[in-house]
Every structure is written in C-alpha cells, then in structure tokens.
C-alpha cells in the first residue's frame, strides 16, 4: 500500500483504501472505543424507549381492570425512569458519536492534505484548484455527517427494529408476522432504492465540483472576462452548469419523494392492527397488550422515517469518500527518497542525453551538457523551446523519460528530494506570491529569518524602496497572488525571496522581464554578487546577462543545438549569431553615446 510521495508526514496511519466504505470503516475503527460506547448507548436507549411502551400497556390494564394507587405510582415511576434514561443514554451515545465523527473528519482531511502535498507537479498540473477545494472541504464535511448522524441512524435502524421486535415477541410471538414481513420487504426495497439514488448523488457531487471549479476560474480571470466584455457569455456558461446541478438536486428530491418504506410501514401497521384485533377476539391479547404492542410497532416507525434522510446522507458521504479517495489514490510519480543521497550540494550539473515528454509529446530531446560548480549557464531559445522545462528537471519537479540529470555526479532520482530541493533557489517565470505580508513572502523560503535579513534581501533586489512607499511597509498584505502589485514589483519580491535563501544552485527563469532597464542595472549587480560561488541557471532575453555567462546553451524545439561560451558560439553557431543579429538590427545610439564617453 506504500505509495510514492514527494513529501511524507510522520505518524500518519495507513487506512484501508480498497473502497469508500472500507475506507470510512477503517477510519472509524481508529476510534474503536467511541464506536463501541456509542453502540452501547444507543442500545440502552432503545431498550428504555421500548420498555416505556410496555409500561403503557400496564397502565392501560390498570385503567381497564383497576388497580390501587401504589400500582399507578409504580407504573408512572417506571415510565419516568425509562423515559429519562432513554434521553440520557441518547445523550451519551450522541456525544460519543460527535467526537468520533469530527475526528474522522479531521483525520481524513489530514490524510487528503498530506497526500496532496506529496503529489508530483504532473498531478497538480492536471487538477483544478476549485475541484480540490470542493473535495477537501465539502466532501470531507460530508464524511462527518455520514457518521453523525449517518452511522448513528444505522444503529438506530438495527436497534430500532430488533429491540421492539424482541419485546413484541415476548408479549406474543405470533404478532411478529407483520413486522418480520415488513422488515424483509424493507431490506429489499431499500437496497433497490439505494441503487437508484447512488448515481444521482455521485453525479450531483461531481457537478458541484465542476460548478465550483468553473466559478473559481471565472473569478480568477475576471479581468479578462471584463476586458473582453464576455460577462453575458460567462453567465450563460454558469447557468448551464448550475442548471445541471439543479437537475440532479431535483432528481434526488423526486427519488426521495417516492420513498416506498414509509408507505409500506403504514400498510404493515394496518395489518398488524388487524392481527392484534384478531388475537384479541380469540382472547389471546388484552387491550393493555394491544396498547403495548401498538406502541412498540410505532417505535419501529422511527428508524423507517429517519432512514429517508440517513440514506441520502450516507450516500452523499460515500460519494464524497469516493471522490476523496480518487485524489489520494492517484499515483504520484516522484518519491521523496528519504534514504537517498543527502550531501551538501557542490553545484555540478550534468544533463546526460536527457529526453523529456509531456503526455507523450517530446519537449526536450537528447539534451546533454555539463556545468561546473560555481559557473553560470545561460539558456536561450525561442518561446516554447523548453527552457523553463529544462530547469524543472534540475529541481526534479518532473522526472526525465530518458537519460539522466546528475547533480554532483549523482542522479537526481538518487538524491534525497528534501536535501536536493532545499539547496536550490528558484524564481519561476510565473511568479506566485501568497496573500500574506510582504515580509512573510520574502521569508517564505527559510525558517526564522530576522527582520534585518529580510530587509537586506529586499534591498539587494531593489525592492526596499517601493516596499517602504506602502502605508504598512513590510507588513503590507499582498492581495491574492500579489494582484495589488505591479509586475516588476512582484518579480523583485520573488528575487528577494530567492536571495534570502542563499541556495547552492540558483535558477532564474526570466526573472527581470517586467523590470525596466535602469532598475535592472541595480539588480544585476546584486545578481552578480548572488551568483558568486554558486551555480546559476539563467534564462533571460537580455544580452548583457547572457554575455557574462560562462556557458550558453541554445535550445531549439527541445534540442540543444549549440553549447559553449559566448566567444565560441559567436564563432561556431549560426543560430546564435542570428539571435544577436536581431538585436543589432535595432537602430543603435551607440555612435553618439560612445562619442559622449559612454555611461
């Protein structure tokens, strides 16, 4: 049952994941004591509850046949005690079940979350955040309801049938006829009912996930929606999805409306009463007995009545559990490899005939190169040629399909993932900032950074000044994904975040594209300092940076078509020269600037 995982948590139990029901049960069994005490409490509840009905029979006998005051008090007192203990035992059972159900909710959300953290990027590329959200909150909450009151109702059903029937049998065995036939039909009908309801419930949950994911997407992209004036179109789409959900909801309502057992019970009660009357006319039953058994028969109606809700609840819960399991069970392709190589990174990187595919189509093909420790390698190439993807192989975000990526001579797959990644620093092209304070964002990559360190990193990244221009300085909260910052400001925060980490290998993926040249001048100085002594992989379109790289790799359509230092490439690579020629084509102010003594 051991899955691969990029991240594991200590002390997390293994649950049975063979199916949603077993999974829920295995969660419940973690808290056996509660389960047992709960069962016990509910058993006593029903015994007391049904016992009170028997006492009613006694009371009726006292009325019809007469009895002394003492007997009356005895019966009343018995009813009092039984009714009160009915309530108290129910209280006990219910409290215990609450603990059980909330624990299961907590534990399963925990399990799901840990497993999500352990999944590889390949997995996350394919998920919609809105759907994951729906699963981790709503579906998990459904689990809570499965147990309380869901499972509680199962107890109810079981005990609610068994206990009164035992009492009835004690009064007259023959009277069991109607209830027994009813229970048999009930089991049969309920099974059919559940089979009809299940797909609707499952589809309903799935549609809810879709609805939530679509909504999340529209809101995230609201700027584009507005600017393209597509509000009407989005409304139509939303309406379509909401309609589908509505249909499943109504379908569920209609299936529930035709819940047969309620009708069956009414008819069974008619027969039961007839049977009683028959026994009475044969002198076997007294009126007191009829009152007692009629009361007992009504005890049975309670679980029948309740089962209408509990079945839906249980089915929703199972549907939820299935969706959660679906996520947990998806294969992760990368393992954190705890026993792997864990030395300090020196910084040599080697690509050895690497081929990489996204879903079967090749993105990198037979790429080979080496970078010495401390060197800076620049990767250039057209959009979509695979530059960003190449860096993701270094940090082992994805695994290669063929060939090897070696860090310090050790295949990244043999590295302890934690040791490997924690010694790298990366500025991704698509910068993600968390909606926390600026200070927290800069300090994201390290534990316990001091305010001073944070400030220094910000200064290096030329971010200090603009941060101080905000009302709350470093404590300013950034909106979701950093929406309240300008593009260049976001990049500078990401730079500060990477600088503060002091990594052995630094990966800069187009990290100054939104920054103006003057600001970049300053940043470049800091970057040079940061690059010193560490291996740097640099993706940029700025010649000045490329120029200073020790080695340049030219990618075209996933192939490394040239590789060498700037001078070498100028001499040997037609392609490389062509890139430079493009820059050269721009009308150049150099003459006048050079004449003016340069800058």
């Amino acid at each position, binding site marked *: 049952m051991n899955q691969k995982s990029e991240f594991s948590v200590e002390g997390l139990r293994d649950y049975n994941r063979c199916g949603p029901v077993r999974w829920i049960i295995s969660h419940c069994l973690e808290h056996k004591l509660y389960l047992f005490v709960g069962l016990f409490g509910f058993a006593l509840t029903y015994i007391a509850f049904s016992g009170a009905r028997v006492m009613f029979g006694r009371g009726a006998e006292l009325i019809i046949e007469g009895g002394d005051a003492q007997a009356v008090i005895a019966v009343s007192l018995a009813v009092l005690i039984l009714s009160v203990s009915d309530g108290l035992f129910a*209280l006990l059972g219910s409290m215990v079940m609450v603990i059980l159900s909330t624990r299961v909710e907590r534990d399963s959300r925990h399990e799901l979350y840990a497993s999500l953290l352990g999944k590889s990027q390949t997995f996350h590329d394919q998920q919609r955040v809105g759907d994951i959200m729906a699963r981790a909150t709503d579906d998990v909450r459904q689990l809570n309801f499965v147990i309380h009151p869901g499972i509680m109702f199962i107890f109810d059903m079981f005990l609610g049938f068994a206990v009164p029937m035992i009492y009835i049998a004690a009064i007259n065995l023959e009277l069991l006829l109607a209830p027994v036939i009813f229970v048999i039909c009930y089991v049969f009908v309920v099974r059919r009912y559940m089979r009809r309801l299940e797909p609707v419930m499952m589809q309903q949950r799935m549609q809810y996930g879709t609805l939530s994911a679509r909504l999340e997407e529209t809101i995230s992209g609201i700027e*584009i929606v507005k600017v393209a004036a597509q509000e009407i179109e989005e409304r139509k789409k*939303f309406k379509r999805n909401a309609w589908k959900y509505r249909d499943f909801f109504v379908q569920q309502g209609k299936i529930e409306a035709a819940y047969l057992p309620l009708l069956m019970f009414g008819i069974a009660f008619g027969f039961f009463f007839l049977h009683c009357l028959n026994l009475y006319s044969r002198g076997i039953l007294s009126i007191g007995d009829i009152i007692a058994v009629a009361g007992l028969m009504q005890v049975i109606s309670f679980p029948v009545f309740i089962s209408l809700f509990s079945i839906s609840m249980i089915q929703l819960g199972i549907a939820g559990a299935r969706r959660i399991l679906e996520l947990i069970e998806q294969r992760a392709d990368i393992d954190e490899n705890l026993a792997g190589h864990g030395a300090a990174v020196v910084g040599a990187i080697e690509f050895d005939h690497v081929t990489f595919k996204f879903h079967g189509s090749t993105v990198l093909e037979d790429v080979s190169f080496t970078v010495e420790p401390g060197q800076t390698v620049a990767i250039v190439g057209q959009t979509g040629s695979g530059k960003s993807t190449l860096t993701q192989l270094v940090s082992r975000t994805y695994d290669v399909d063929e060939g090897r990526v070696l860090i310090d001579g050790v295949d990244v797959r043999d590295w302890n993932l934690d040791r490997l990644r924690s010694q790298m620093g990366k500025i991704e092209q698509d910068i993600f900032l968390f909606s926390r304070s600026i200070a927290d964002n800069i300090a994201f990559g390290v534990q316990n950074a001091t305010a001073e360190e944070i400030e220094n990193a910000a200064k290096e990244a030329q971010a200090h000044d603009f941060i101080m221009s905000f009302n709350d300085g470093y404590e300013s909260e950034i909106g979701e994904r950093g929406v309240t910052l300008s593009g260049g400001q976001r990049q500078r925060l990401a730079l500060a975040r990477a600088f503060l980490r002091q990594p052995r290998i630094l990966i800069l993926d187009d990290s100054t594209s939104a920054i103006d040249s003057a600001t970049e001048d300053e940043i470049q100085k800091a970057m040079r300092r940061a690059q010193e002594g560490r291996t740097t992989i640099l993706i940029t379109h700025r010649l000045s940076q490329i120029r200073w790289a020790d080695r340049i790799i030219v990618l075209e359509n996933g192939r490394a078509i040239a590789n060498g230092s700037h001078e070498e490439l100028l001499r040997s690579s037609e392609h490389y020269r062509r890139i430079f020629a493009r820059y050269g084509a721009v009308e150049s102010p150099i003459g006048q600037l050079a004449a003016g003594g340069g800058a």
Partner: protein
Amino acid sequence: MGFIMDGLDAEEYDRIYSDWALVKRILGYFKSHLWKMLVVGAVVFLSSVMDLILPVVVSQALDQLQFSPEAFDPIGTSIILGVAASAGWVANMIRQWLSAEAVGDVTLDLREDAFNAVTERDMSFYDQYPTGKVVSRVLSDTQAFSETVRLSINLMSRLLLVVLLIIYLFTVNVNMTWVLMAIIPFIVYTALKFRTVARRTVTNSRRQLATVNAHIQESISGIGVAKAFRREQMIYDEFKTVNQESYEVEKINGFVFGSIFPILVTIAGLGVAAVVWFGINMAQQGILTAGEWFLFIQGMGMIWFPLTSISSFWSQFQLGLAAGERVFALIDAEALVKQNADDPVDQLEGEIEFVNMDFHYNEGEQVLKDFSLRIRPGETLALVGHTGSGKSSIAKLISRFYEFQQGALLIDGVDIRYFNLSSYRSQLGVVTQTPFLFDGTVMDNIRYGKPEASDEEVIEVAHQVGRGDWLASLQEGLETQVGERGNNLSMGQRQLVAIARVLLQDPAIFILDEATASVDPLTETLIQEGLDTLLGDRTSIVIAHRLSTIQHADRIIVLELGEIIESGSHDSLMAAGGHYATLYDSYFRHQSLEYIERMAG
C-alpha cells in the same frame, strides 16, 4: 439579523437587512412558483390530517373494543388505517416532489443573481476579496439558504399537525390537554436557550471552515513554489493547526447540536410520565377511557418532536437567513465604479483624453496626480518608465476597471462615465500584463473575445502573430489543452495566445501592457512586424521595457511616479538627452552586442 453576523468574518460590503425585508425578498423568489406552493400548502394540510387519523382511529378502536365489541368492524378499521397511510404518503410525495422543484429553481435563480452580481463587481472588489470567499458566497451560502427553505417547508407541515392535534385533543378532554400542554413552555424554553449557544457555535464552525477553505485554496494554488522551496513541512504545519482548530470548534458545535434532542427527550419524558399518572387517575375516575389515555400519550410524542425541531432548528433557520443576507449583500454591493448613464457606444474613433486626473488605489498611495494626456485617434503611444510608475494603472483606467478621484477621462470627447461598459469594452483590445487563459484549447482561448468567430478566422489570426512560428511548438497545435490558467503552456506562449485573442476581437483601441515581455526577442520582432500593420491606423497604447519595440511609436511618454516627465518622438527625445536617452542607453547596454563588446573590450 445583525447579531448573527458577529464574528462571521463580515466583509465591508456586508449590510444588515431587517428580517422582514429578507423574508419578503426570499418570498419574491418563490413568486413564479406560486401554484406549486399553493399545492404544497394543500398537500401539507392533507398529510397532517392523515397523520392525525392514525392515532385517533386506533384510540377509538380500542374504546369500541372495550365498550361495544359487537358493533366493531376490525377489517374496516384496518382498511381506514391503510388508506390513511397511503393517502398521507401520496400527499407527502407530492409535497416533496414539488418543493424539490421549487427549491431547486429558487436556488438556481439565487445563484444566477449572485453570479451576475459577481460579474458586475469592479476590479477593486477582487483586489480585496479572495476568490475562495466569493466562491463560497455564490455556492455554499446559496446552498445553506436552500436547505433552510426545504427545512422550513418540512417543519411547517409538522407545526400544522401540532395545531390540528391540540384542537382535536381539546374536544376529547380539556383538562388532559392542559396537562399535555404544560410541558410545552419547558421544551420551548430549553430549545430557545440552546439557540443562543447554537448560534455562536455554528457561526464559529462556519468561519473555521472558511479558513480551512482559504488555506487549502492558496496552498494548492502555490504548490509549485512550496515544492521548489521545499517548504511543504511549513505549509503542512500551518494546515495542521488550522485543521485542529476546525476540529475543536466543530466538536463543540457537534456537542451542542447533538445534545439538543436527547435533552429535550428527557424533558418530554417527564411530560409523558405526568400524562401517564394524571391519565390513569382520571380514567379510574371514569373521566377518560383507556383509548383516549393512549391517544394523549401518543399526542405527547407527536407534539414534542415538531416543537423541538422548530425551536432547535430556529438557529438553523436564522443561519439560513444569514446566508441569504450574505448573498443579497453580494448582489446589492455598491459598485465603486459609478456610471452616470448607460449609453451604447458606436464605432469609436479612438481619441482618449485624461483631464487633470488624480487616482489612487489606497488612500495615501497616490498613483496619478493631476495627470493630463491626450491621445489622438489613430496614434500609437508608447509608455515607458520604472516599474510601479503607473503604466498599467493608466491602462486599467482606460478599461474603466477603477474609479478615479478627480478629473475626467474622455473617449472621443465623451465622458467615460456615460458609456455602457460592456459595449465600450468590446471595442477595447487589451493584453494584460499577466496573461490569463481559461481551461480549454488554444483555439477556445483565442476565440474567447469573439465566440462567434469561425475556425478559419481563428487560424488566420493565429498565423498573423509572429508569422505563426509559435504554433509549431505547441504539441497539438491549436487543439492543445492549455490547462487551468494556461499552466500547461510556456509563459511566452500564453502571451502569444493573449495577443491573438485581442487581434481576433478587431478592436478600435489597442492596449498592449508588456504583452511580449516573456517572449524571446526573435519572436518579438516577428510579432512587431505583424502588429505594425495592424496598429497602423488605430489608437494604440504600448507599454514595454524593450525599447526596440517602441521606438517607432508616434509618441513616447516617460512616466515617473505617475507624472509625465518627458514626451516626444524617439528622435526628439534622444536628441534632448534626458531620461529617455538614459533609459535607452542603459537598455542598449543590456541588448546590443556591439556595445557590450566595445565596453568589455
């Protein structure tokens, strides 16, 4: 309704409605289902009567059995029981069937209204409120609301039963009915007490769930960063705390809700004992028959259950109202961007004029100050300046995403406040700084702004962007799935799709906000060639750091801290030797091989 909002992370746009206003509004949603609701009312009555028949018939049968057995017809009685049960069941079925439809439709209507409101809020709204919370208003709150409506219909039918039962019992025996009713105040009192507690715990529980939701949303969105920095442990620890807190709160909430029934059962138990005792005594005095006595005992059970439900679900009901209130607040939220009229916009010439404009997002962080700028129809204007100098903000103001504080913005000489925004924006073509793609194919995304465009048009436009070279790098060409937010494409590819999207729209005004920043210079030059012809006679605003892309602009504006410090053509600005020249110089130090060589050598 204000009290219930205490602590339930109220947002600024939340407002307080009176209960009556809420109920009226909710009823308004049911208007179109009037006949359904009438039928529901009728069948609710019917099923209550049928539910009442069962105990009454049983009790009368018992009495007959005792006092006049010869006149008693056992089969007839049983048939009545069976028929009553069947009729009740059918009535119930109709009720559920119709109310499922009505509630489903009302929820749908409410969701639609909420969603429409969402699309109408302006950008500052989204800067302020995280996606997760808005989603939860549109989905969860409407859900909670509809649950409540369903519950209310259910309870209403039960309440009716109580009333009918008590009326009937009064005709049987007045004194016993009073004994029975003596317990009601205790039940109601206890349930109301619970309500106070329940309201607090349930509010906490929802707030905690929202926190869990927000945590998951953000950490999963940012999972890539967490992986790259190997900070899963930190995120996990945070989650554990949040989840544990949610557990504690939920447990208490569960205790409260789980104990209401048992405790009330206990109280009802006292009542039953009282009925038993008084009843037997009365019966022994001949005032009550055994059958009637049994009827009162059963009546006890039939009364306490609905009463308990109503009292304890009262908090649920309040919660539903509160959820409704949250949804209505979203629907009614005031737009910060205020339009004075809603005039449709004809074909625009493309003149844009900022008149003495002041603009800030947050008080005290001024972005534009006394800003004036006139862009002629057909002009290509380039904006350059440091990051954070306000370039994108100008673009956003032209898109009318934010409200400005002072001055005016005129489009073709008309105040932008008079436009119908949708028809105005459909003539704008904006490539935003961060490209956002929707899940679907590249083709879908290019077509986004003009859904009726044919495949051929899309293909043509796609080939106009950078001569279509970039299409070759897409795995399945235009049919490539871009993934959520376009994550499965490279950044540069996303920008190219965004450009194609705008080109297809064929707008009167182009705004390109660093639209090619992540594209390699080679591809960029190709795009530029294509754009030059397209932008030729249209108003266009180009923001870029690659000065090579803007030197052919008709006019270049240099911004610093929201003020225009220089303006003119490339040549004149170079000649002036001011900021632009310095910028250009530093840019060239970055980009020109020759220059770099010379400096190095």
